[in-house]
């Protein structure tokens, strides 16, 4: 298939939507499809061959913050030219409610259109979506995809109709191999945590209490914590003697994250709630970490009921200490879990997700005779 994908946000800036599009495009290309991504990007920066840049995005206030977007007559002309030259079988617009290339593409195109909604829309934006230019652009969409239940709910409630739920994939190949951070896991064992330190539902407090139980009897045991937040707050929760056995990486880059996942013997997901899928846990599984996670439904599901990683009672630090302690003493079990995790996470790989997206493309193409063109 010839697939045209429109990205609303600057390709040079890291972000969830951009990496979703990158991983999807690469998975589709792997399957032998012809993919072209139009995105705001500087023409003079190195870009993957499948990206068509429309020039640097303009910082502009939108929805209460400053976003880097592409709009205006020049961008519209470039989108039109891309549609004409691409001769796509299907157009896939991401976040079509953002005033940027995706909206322009929906507006300018005729033919089969698929749209993916990433974030739950605030009510005020929904109101705009139901009137004027937005409406005529959105009405052309043949198939709608939502990446989360929250995004799907707002879409269905406010705009009517329905959307298929296809969650984000995990680019498992990016996580498989990495050299551990220098000096890790070290002489004793190491436990890893990744997430916002100051978000209570990420459960760092539970892990710190369990560490307090585990650490005195295991003199070499250390904690490796990656994620935004104030280390001083986290450190203050521990007895003074243990404080220098916790290492903070702060906010990490994509590469550092993979390295960190390979630097620990156990990866802990102590979340107390709010996880719909547990992308971080899935990434740790792809890195082959032995996982200890709270028994939230989301974790129970990705960890196959506890066979691909150990579960402990949600919020119970003593239970976490017991489960993690047993695992620290049993390298054989850790190796088993690591193999099982790598195997289990395959179900969430982008190649699987891309297949689902492809079936959406095939379905919308079925009902249309023409390929994608420029609306007149």
């Amino acid at each position, binding site marked *: 298939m010839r697939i045209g994908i429109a990205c609303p946000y600057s390709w040079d800036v890291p972000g969830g939507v951009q990496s979703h599009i990158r991983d999807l495009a690469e998975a589709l290309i792997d399957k032998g499809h012809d993919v072209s991504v139009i995105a705001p990007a500087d023409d003079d920066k190195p870009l993957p061959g499948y990206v068509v840049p429309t020039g640097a995005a*303009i*910082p*502009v*206030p*939108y*929805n*209460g913050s400053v976003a880097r*977007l*592409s*709009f*205006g*007559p*020049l*961008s*519209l*002309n470039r989108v039109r030219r891309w549609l004409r030259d691409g001769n796509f079988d299907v157009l896939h617009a991401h976040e079509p409610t953002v*005033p*940027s*290339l995706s*909206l*322009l593409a929906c*507006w300018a195109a005729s033919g089969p259109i698929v749209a993916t909604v990433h974030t739950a829309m605030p009510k*005020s*934006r929904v*109101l*705009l979506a139901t009137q*004027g*230019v*937005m409406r*005529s*652009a959105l009405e052309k969409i043949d198939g709608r995809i939502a990446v989360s239940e929250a995004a799907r709910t707002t879409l269905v409630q406010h705009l009517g109709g329905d959307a298929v739920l296809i969650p984000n994939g995990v680019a498992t190949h990016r996580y498989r191999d990495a050299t551990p951070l220098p000096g890790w896991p070290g002489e004793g064992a190491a436990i890893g945590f990744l997430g916002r330190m100051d978000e209570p539902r990420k459960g760092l407090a539970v892990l710190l209490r369990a560490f307090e139980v585990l650490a005195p009897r295991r003199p070499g045991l250390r904690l490796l914590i990656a994620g935004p937040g104030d280390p001083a707050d986290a450190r203050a929760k521990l007895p003074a003697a243990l404080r220098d056995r916790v290492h903070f990486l702060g906010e990490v880059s994509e590469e550092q994250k993979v390295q960190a996942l390979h630097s620990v013997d156990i990866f802990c997901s102590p979340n107390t709630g709010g996880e719909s899928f547990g992308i971080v846990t899935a990434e740790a599984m792809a890195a082959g970490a032995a996982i200890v996670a709270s028994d939230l439904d989301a974790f129970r599901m990705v960890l196959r009921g506890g066979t691909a990683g150990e579960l402990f009672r949600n919020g119970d630090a003593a239970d976490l200490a017991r489960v993690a302690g047993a695992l620290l003493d049993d390298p054989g079990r850790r190796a088993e879990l690591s193999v099982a995790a790598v195997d289990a996470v395959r179900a969430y790989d982008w190649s699987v997700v891309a297949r689902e997206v492809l079936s959406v493309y095939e379905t919308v193409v079925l009902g249309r005779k023409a390929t994608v063109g420029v609306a007149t």
Partner: protein
Amino acid sequence: MTLFYVALVILVVVVMAVYVSWRAGRLDRLHHRTDGARTALDLALVRRSSGAYELASSGLLDPATSLLLEDAVRRTKENGSQRAVFDRELAESDLTRALRAAFTQPEFRQSLKDNDGAEELVIAVEAAARQVFLARKFYNDIVARTLEARRRPLVRVFRLAGHAAQPVFFEMDDVLTDE
């Protein structure tokens, strides 16, 4: 003799009273003019918002630019008058920035020529924005003079400002073109 001194004291008191009441009247007039200037500024801002909305919903611009402007206009209207001044300043500045980003797009001016009526709408917004610039300058000028008057010792000793609220400057980004 004493009668003369009594008369003198009475005269001095009367002169002072007249002077103080004249100063109070002057301050009162300043406050009133502040209110007037504020009304003018509010009207200019509303006119600019409406112009921007009319342009955004005209269907003569590309949909992304339209949506950006609609969003910025909507934010200036949120919660009406109960908004904190700071939020209002921020929303109005954001509208300026959105208009500036839209109007300085490459090929923006040329593209207007193809759509009948688009140029007039843009000119109307620019005129309204110019009026905002002027109204805000005049308002801040009178606020500065009022604040200066309120700081005078006589005004403070006799509490001549009474219950009139202390006026505040209106700070925003109101320059539409980078000239």
